[in-house]
């Protein structure tokens, strides 16, 4: 079991008062709570801060933690003999347990988890995980692997860290930011309570071509000035393969050309749209022939796009 310096994590002295610990926790929670923070690694930092506070705010747990003595963070430690029984835990085994589980275990004899259901059982803990998938995976559906560590307690309330590898199928049509649920894949329920769930927040990775808004896709479509002027049929990539798109004559830069139903699938069997945003692309260099034709056009045309500025 690796030692964590809960006082250092909260930035307080070992002799800090309850009020000082609470204040330090609140300050860090404002900064790192994943629901309100945009800080990098906010979730991991908040988890650490919450774990430290959960132990130090409770006088009994703090006394138990203090008995472990100061160590270097990351140092391997074993609680002294009789340490667990002193705090109401019998026959502790400290294998496969981290410090957070140990202190959660100290609460075991007081009852843990949340009572639920008519049976009066204790419902297993829910877990939240994040997964990033590609736009192609959202289009076709995919399977992701999750490595979870669930905490289980024996009949004496002794915690045990149980690693679990869960494979989850992500259905096609999942949207960026959508939360999916894996029922019964969370912590084990106790005394007839049902198992907890895993909530999986899905994020779409940025794509080289497409930008995603809900189930619609947006693609930049460069066309030549003469394609825009004369109209053209151009081949564009969609998630289901290339399609021909008609660029109407007189198309302007910034026009959105819509391909209905070529976006991401929706859960109810429909699909979003694909929008090709027209960009007028100029060649980096004109050949002599091209220059001559453009000069001829410039001389012949009376078109003035800046008339409204005059």
């Amino acid at each position, binding site marked *: 079991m690796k030692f964590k310096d809960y006082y250092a994590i909260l930035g307080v002295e070992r002799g800090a008062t309850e009020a000082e610990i609470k204040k330090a926790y*609140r300050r860090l*929670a404002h900064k790192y*709570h994943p*629901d*309100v923070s945009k800080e990098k690694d906010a979730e991991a930092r*908040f988890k650490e801060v*919450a774990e430290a506070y959960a132990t130090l705010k409770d006088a009994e747990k703090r006394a138990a933690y203090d008995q472990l003595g100061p160590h270097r963070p990351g140092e391997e430690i074993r609680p002294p003999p009789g340490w667990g029984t002193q705090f109401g835990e019998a026959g502790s085994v400290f294998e496969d347990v981290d410090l957070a589980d140990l202190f959660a275990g100290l609460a075991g004899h007081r009852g843990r988890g*949340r009572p*639920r*259901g008519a049976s009066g059982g204790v*419902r297993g803990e*829910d877990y939240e995980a994040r997964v990033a998938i590609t736009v192609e995976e959202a289009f076709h559906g995919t*399977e*992701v692997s999750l490595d979870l560590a669930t905490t289980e307690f024996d009949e004496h309330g002794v915690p045990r860290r149980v*690693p*679990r*590898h*869960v*494979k*989850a*199928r*992500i*259905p096609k049509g*999942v949207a960026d930011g*959508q*939360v*999916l*649920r*894996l*029922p*019964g*894949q969370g912590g084990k329920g106790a005394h007839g309570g049902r198992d907890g*769930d895993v*909530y*999986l927040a899905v994020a779409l990775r940025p794509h080289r071509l497409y*930008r*995603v*808004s*809900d189930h619609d896709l*947006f693609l*930049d479509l460069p066309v030549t000035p003469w394609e825009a002027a004369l109209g053209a049929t151009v081949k564009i990539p969609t998630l289901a393969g290339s399609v021909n798109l008609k660029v109407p004559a007189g198309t302007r*830069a*910034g026009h*959105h050309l819509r391909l209905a139903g070529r976006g991401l699938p929706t*859960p109810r069997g429909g699909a979003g749209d694909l*929008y090709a*945003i027209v*960009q007028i692309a100029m060649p980096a260099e004109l050949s002599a022939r091209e220059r001559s034709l453009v000069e001829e056009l410039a001389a012949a045309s009376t078109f003035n796009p800046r008339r409204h500025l005059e």
Partner: protein
Amino acid sequence: MTTERDEAFGFDEERPLALSDLADLSGLSEAEVLELVDYGALSPADATAGQCVFTVRAVTIARTARRLREEFELEPHGVALLLSCLDRIRDLEEQLRALQVRLPR
């Protein structure tokens, strides 16, 4: 280490959620859910006499409410206030993103 395979699925958006379902999925008590309804943080889809029915969107809101209550040690009124601010931020972020994707790079 066990390997299990399961289907991850979105909530059935058509399925109405009873007060007890919402409490069960969120970890809030039914009384806490009703208090959030009183403060306007949760809106029942159908509030007929003696029966509160919610849409699945309420699950995310209620789960966030439970986290905020526990981790910021907030009273229900503070939770409701923070939820409404977070909701406004999320709406604005969505509008900003929807505009950004429409701009050529």
